[in-house]
């Protein structure tokens, strides 16, 4: 086991081991649990940084273990994987702090943090999967580890949401399994290779189209593509940290990441275009973008509005992937990071409003800016980013997507982007208006004397930091290790080799 093989496993272990230990810790051991969590998160960040530095200099980190004849469990930290791993590691660190603060006195925290760590392990596993079978393995592990988090509160609503979540995700898992098995039967291999391995495999194109449909349907459930998105809004019943990390970053991104892997590393984007499947994907993505934004308009509950916004935003990634062209690909891939940063900030702020002042509805947010200025400032930065205003990160991704669409001659996509940006504005600006320019209607408890911050530090710092990251990602887009540059590196190395 050389050092290059050990590193991917170590990254997985930094969240798996603390998770398993936490399961067996007694409920009361709060400090030990927090230390374990944070230590795990920090070590993961360090290891990811090492790998980032290594991969950018051409190192290769991979480990594989034969499961069955012709089937290997393989982890490979290529440039695309690291993009997602870095995002997950950073946001897991922040969300852990947030969760410790948020769940101060609630029961079942040992179970919560145990499954929380398992879930991050699954997400990192999905990112670093070297072939479709390892991807499927961690994809299903993600389903299993997120179910207890969705039903964490054990209320009837939580269990109903959990059952619906299972119905969708296990159904999706079955479709993905069938697609994978059929693909293996047709092509004999499942290893992700740049520009795909399906082209010369002799399988007939209708079969490959059917396989593509099955695979995308499987991952589409978690990427919340329109017909398969039903579980996301209802899963908002979960506690805020769960909605923040899982339904903004881990779960939906795993789905979007799956689409990227399938289109680029299984079929190869040119061959997929030949098959005509990318047009179908683009259509579904476009419909989802518009549909998600429209439904978000109608939601009064803040978290449900954010949920529908996630449904539409994730499909930007799918759209970027579906439009054949380097610029659109960069736009789609970089949006994976940007949307994560922005959406987690929004969910953090929503959690703060609910936890500190008990506000759940958009209509209740009048004048919240005065009472909780920092949280609302972070909310504003993220909201404007979502709309796509410079200099926030959202602008970068929409800019590339627009250029890509024009370059590929898909002018209709430009209209979709413009229309959805307008819709974003339509459902975010009223919130900002209420928060800053309206007088508070309800009488909230004033900030307790002698306490400087508007709410607990553990709840306040994460959204502020992520808001800063949104700004930095936008302003310093062209700096060497920024998400945009890294996405460009990914696209250049993975998809358009000379």
């Amino acid at each position, binding site marked *: 086991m050389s050092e290059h093989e050990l590193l991917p496993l170590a990254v997985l272990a930094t969240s798996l081991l603390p998770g398993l230990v936490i399961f067996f810790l007694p409920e009361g051991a709060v400090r030990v649990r927090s230390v374990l969590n944070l230590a795990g998160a920090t070590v993961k960040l360090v290891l990811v940084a090492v790998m980032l530095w290594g991969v950018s200099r051409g190192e290769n980190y991979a480990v594989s273990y034969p499961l*069955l004849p012709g089937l290997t469990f393989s982890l490979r930290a290529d440039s695309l994987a690291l993009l997602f791993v870095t995002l997950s590691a950073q946001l897991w660190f922040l969300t852990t702090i947030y969760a410790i603060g948020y769940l101060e006195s609630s029961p079942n925290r040992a179970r919560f943090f145990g499954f929380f760590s398992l879930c991050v392990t699954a997400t990192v596993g999905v990112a670093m999967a070297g072939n479709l079978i390892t991807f499927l393995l961690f994809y299903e592990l993600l389903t299993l580890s997120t179910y207890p988090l969705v039903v964490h509160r054990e209320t009837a609503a939580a269990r109903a949401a959990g059952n619906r979540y299972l119905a969708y995700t296990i159904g999706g898992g079955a479709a993905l399994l069938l697609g994978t098995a059929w693909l293996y039967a047709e092509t004999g291999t499942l290893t992700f290779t740049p520009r795909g391995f399906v082209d010369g495999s002799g399988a007939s194109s209708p079969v490959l189209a059917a396989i593509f449909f099955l695979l995308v349907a499987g991952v589409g459930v978690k990427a919340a593509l329109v017909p398969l998105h039903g579980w996301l809004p209802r899963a908002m019943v979960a506690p805020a940290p769960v909605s923040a990390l899982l339904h903004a970053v881990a779960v939906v991104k795993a789905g979007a990441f799956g689409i990227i892997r399938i289109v680029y590393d299984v079929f190869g984007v040119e061959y997929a275009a030949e098959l005509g499947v990318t047009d179908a994907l683009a259509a579904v993505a476009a419909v989802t973008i518009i549909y998600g934004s429209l439904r978000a308009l109608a939601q009064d509950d803040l978290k449900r509005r954010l949920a529908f916004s996630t449904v539409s935003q994730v499909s930007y990634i799918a759209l970027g992937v579906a439009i054949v062209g380097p610029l659109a690909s960069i736009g789609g891939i970089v949006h994976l990071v940007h949307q994560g940063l922005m959406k987690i900030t929004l969910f953090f702020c929503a959690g703060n409003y609910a936890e500190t002042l008990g506000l759940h509805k958009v209509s209740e947010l009048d004048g919240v800016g005065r009472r909780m200025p920092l949280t609302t400032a972070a909310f504003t930065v993220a909201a404007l980013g979502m709309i796509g205003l410079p200099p926030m990160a959202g602008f970068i991704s929409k800019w590339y997507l627009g250029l890509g669409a024009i370059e590929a001659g898909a002018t209709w996509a430009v209209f979709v982007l413009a229309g959805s940006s307008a819709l974003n504005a339509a459902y975010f600006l009223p919130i900002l208006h209420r928060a800053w320019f309206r007088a508070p209607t309800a009488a909230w408890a004033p900030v307790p004397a002698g306490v400087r911050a508007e709410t607990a530090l553990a709840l306040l710092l994460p959204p502020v930091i992520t808001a800063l990251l949104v700004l930095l990602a936008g302003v310093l887009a062209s700096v060497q290790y920024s998400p945009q540059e890294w996405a460009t590196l990914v696209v250049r190395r993975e998809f358009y080799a000379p």
Partner: protein
Amino acid sequence: MSASSLLPLLVLWPLAGGLLGLLLPRGAGPLLLGVSTGNLALAVALVDALAGAGKVAHSVGGWSTPLGIALRADGLSAVLILVAGAVAPLLALYASAAYAGRELRYFAGLFLLFLGALNGLFIAGDLFNLYVTLELLGLSAVALAALGGGAAALAASLRYLLATITGSLAYLLGVALLYRATGTLDLLQLSGQGPALPGGAVAFALMVAGLLLKAAVFPLHFWLPPAHANASPPVSAALSALAVKAPLYLLLRLWLSTYDGAWPLVAELLAAIGAAGVLWCSLQAVLQRRAKLLVAYSTVAQLGYLLLALALVPAAGAAAYGAFTLLLVSHVLAKAGLFLAVGNLARRAGHDRLDGFERVVQHLPLSASAIALAGVSLMGMPPSGGFNGKWLLLQAAIATGDWWLVAVILVGGLLAAVYIFKLIEHTFGGSDRPDATALPRRMEWAALTLAASAVGVGFLGQPLLRLLGGVP
């Protein structure tokens, strides 16, 4: 100690242990643990011996067949003896905590004789010897099922007894016809001759019918759920995990070697019965309101999967044969763990009605996670052994182009997810029974170890298949 003398030891050791268990009024717990661990050691030695030679044989009494009886072990027997040997000590550990006094003594005696019969069956190379081992297995299973049970357990055991005897007699009639036509009872001498024999088809039909009844396969499964649901946890674990597998193993031996996978109609019939079993019994499991009945119906459903794999062996070869073995091995581990865990829940709640399971996940976290892990394997979710089996089964079904089988496999997986999560969901909520008895820790650890190994075996797919070797 030569490899061939390992085979008789695998039978003598548990039988002697069982006899001692019945004779000695005290010390049943340590005896049970000691003998079952010794049995595991012998099983590992057999696997080691087989790794080199590929086949081990021992002619009893030194008489050559057709006069004497031959004991033979190939890859499949070694795998099954190994997995049964691995489960036995954990069931023993659980029983030594769950039982005491008279009940522990009879459980120790009967369970070890049951284990001896099982080992004897997996290495028997003679048709009549298989009948006697099947009968010994059936009777000890019936006695175990009735052990300490109430009226419902007695009624279920009586029906189990009648079903297992009828199955054995139908099998024996088939053996009689084969002996009449060939003059020998030895499997090796009979291999490949089956189809051409006068009355060979009738004999095969009788034997298959008998074995399907003894294995409680779908249309003939009526006696299993009450018997397994009303027995005590370690007994229902032993019955569901081990007892119902022996007739299926025998069916595989007869069909693949003696009848050389003859008559495609048989393959289609087995596939149809298997598919119907998977769908109907998974549905029944979903509808159950008692946890143990749910798990018992899940057993019959999983047997349907095994039949599907068996039906595909002649057409799909090694993939289906590997699927059969991996599905069987992971079902043994997962079902034993699941029954023990559900037994813990029922013992704590005082009943096994699903809606009455109170806040179990707080007070029995190990059992709740055992249910989850066992469920992962039963659903065929990666990275479990169940997934490996399901994957190979899918490959076999796609290779032979049976798309309706692919659909059945996937729908079966979804239904399994429904009833497993029905179990898991009930451990998440509800009120709490303050005075519930605390369970000895080792009962929970036994369940968790079994369930975790069902998932762990997912990473041992390659060595298991290498040990298994080619289709007989």
